[in-house]
């Protein structure tokens, strides 16, 4: 598979005005996204996942590291809006209502990216209609204003606007977190279908693990600006190795009282502030497996096969302790299927 996006040792620090301290938003993050693949960045608030997205879009200049798109280095100077790259990387926002201009008709909004590519009006209109059909928007909707649509429909507009330039990569920043569960599921279905049709690469930024399990090929778990574990979705969800991943997974409450990820591993306290982080492993303050070594230096990536990388000195001990190896998201889906079929 050809690599579309490659991020190597990305660092993003923000100085705090009036002091020597820095906010260490992103610390040494590396990953790749291949054609037609979805990589999800998951983490809680403050984990730096959104900052990574902003670096890729060239909205901010990284403090260190490289981002390349098809092997070509990009950054603040040579970015999404530069000639040659324009339209190849697109973005879908979290709040559909806020990302659409309330005074511009939907059809015009969707066609907007084509204008900057200098396409003719007739071609543009034809293309807008075609794309609208693709994302399940009615012809009428094109003549409406954003406020007249439901949140789910608005997000379809956001997606239509993103795919109209035939991008190779779409950065999806929490595209479903503002939607209610029914609309969320529809949008996810749409994204999966579009990816199959267009072979687009997705970088999916989210804290919603259930959704992540559904649409990702690979998952990278972020904590305090670093990727603590990454691998195939299957591996991460059924055989997580990093104590933080385990803690995160067992915190998800699925609507089935019989299914609980009863884990022996539990995290203490809360995510510390990303200002002046310690030398060692960032999880040390909350981790039940902590040892002297963890406080001394940052663990490097340990490849345990199949591209499954873990940043933890103790992951072999962790796996011994961690008995709850089942991918309970999968189990939940099986149970849910039974339930939904049986009543119909």
């Amino acid at each position, binding site marked *: 598979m050809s690599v579309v996006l490659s991020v190597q040792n990305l660092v993003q620090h923000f100085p705090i005005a009036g002091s020597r301290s820095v906010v260490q938003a992103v610390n040494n993050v590396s990953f790749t996204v291949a054609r037609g693949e979805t990589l999800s960045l998951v983490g*809680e608030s403050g984990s730096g996942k959104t900052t990574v997205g902003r670096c890729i879009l060239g909205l901010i200049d990284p403090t260190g590291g490289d981002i390349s798109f098809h092997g070509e280095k990009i950054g603040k100077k040579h970015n999404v809006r530069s000639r040659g790259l324009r339209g190849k990387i697109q973005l879908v926002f979290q709040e559909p209502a806020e990302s659409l201009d309330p005074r511009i008709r939907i059809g015009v909004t969707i066609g907007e990216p084509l204008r900057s590519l200098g396409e003719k009006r007739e071609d543009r209109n034809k293309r807008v209609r075609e794309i609208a059909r693709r994302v399940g928007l009615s012809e009428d909707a094109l003549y409406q204003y954003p406020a007249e649509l439901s949140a789910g429909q608005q997000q379809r507009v956001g997606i239509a606007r993103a795919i109209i330039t035939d991008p190779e990569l779409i950065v999806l920043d929490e595209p479903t977190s503002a939607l209610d569960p029914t609309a969320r*599921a529809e949008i996810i279905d749409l994204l999966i279908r579009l990816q199959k049709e267009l072979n687009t690469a997705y970088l999916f930024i989210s804290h919603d693990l259930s959704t992540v399990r559904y649409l990702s090929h690979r998952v990278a778990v972020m904590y305090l600006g670093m990727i603590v574990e990454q691998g195939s979705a299957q591996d991460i969800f059924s055989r997580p190795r990093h104590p933080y991943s385990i803690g995160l997974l067992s915190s998800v409450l699925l609507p089935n009282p019989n299914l609980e990820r009863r884990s022996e591993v539990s995290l203490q306290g809360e995510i510390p502030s990303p200002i002046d982080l310690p030398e060692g492993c960032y999880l040390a303050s909350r981790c039940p497996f902590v040892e002297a070594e963890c406080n001394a230096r940052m663990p490097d990536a340990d490849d345990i096969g199949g591209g499954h990388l873990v940043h933890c000195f103790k992951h072999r001990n962790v796996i011994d302790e961690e008995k709850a190896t089942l991918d309970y998201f999968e189990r939940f889906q099986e149970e849910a299927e039974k*339930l939904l079929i049986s009543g119909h």
Partner: protein
Amino acid sequence: MAENSAAGTILNIEGLNVSYPVYETDPVRALRGIDLKVREGEIIGLVGESGSGKTTLARSIMQLISRPGRVDSGRIEYDGRDLATLGEEELRALRGNDIAMVIPNPRTELNPLVTVGMQIANVARYHLSLPRKEAKKMAMAMLEAVQIPDPTRRFKAYPHELSGGMAQRVVMAIALICSPRFIISDDATSGLDVTVQTQVLELLQDLVQQQGASMLFITRDIGITAHYCHQVAIIYAGEIVELASTQNFFDNPQHPYSVMLLSAFSHNPKLRGLWTKVVDAALEGAAESGCYFAARCVRASDKCRAEHPDMREMTDAHSVRCHHPVER
């Protein structure tokens, strides 16, 4: 979670109707004929989308419906007393003391100019008529009970100096300091990250059960109710459409709306399609006769559009408001 059937009823809501008058049109009916019993020591989860009337119900129990809303009919009995007959001072003595509230946005709902320790102590001071010093001591103990790190320092902290999780613990301390018998949690953990959310939920559950209190747990997240509640009530358009023990509900959800809520978690679009009806937004909410859910319901018949269904007890501890409940 064990059933708690022998215990007495602490809260009894009967036929509660609450509406908000709207200028020159019909009033908005926020709650329509709510019947709900909460037994002692029981945690009931109340699940609904935004606008379904959850918060109005919480405020009705508190007798603090925001203006210009009003109770049209029905009664709320707490511990055998009709709350509507109580005077302002009697209600004040109940609120925060017998009936306590855990709120969703502690960082805007805590007073920004008062230290959190004093905010906890104030509640004890006025309800338990304690001298200032005693109340402070008690607040300190409460901060420890809700497992705030470094409680002596946090006592003197202001709300903006706390993280979301810590502020949520402070709110729990305020709710629990007078050992209330009934607690309402209104979307209390929705703003927290998942790892913190579970910690807070575990703690809340432990403390509520330790004190032998009952809780109405209002939430949008049906997943939480599966793990932390004895009973589940589903509210749609201001009325309860299904009420069952947690196990019964999740094993055998019977209202098409409940199943639709659950189907949203499925990753199989075909199965979801079985329970979701694509509706024109214009038609939504139009039904004032018949079943309020009929327009969105995959099982709707002519009867549903004509005749409003009553709550029916299907099996023991499982009631549904539907003409065509799902059978398995």
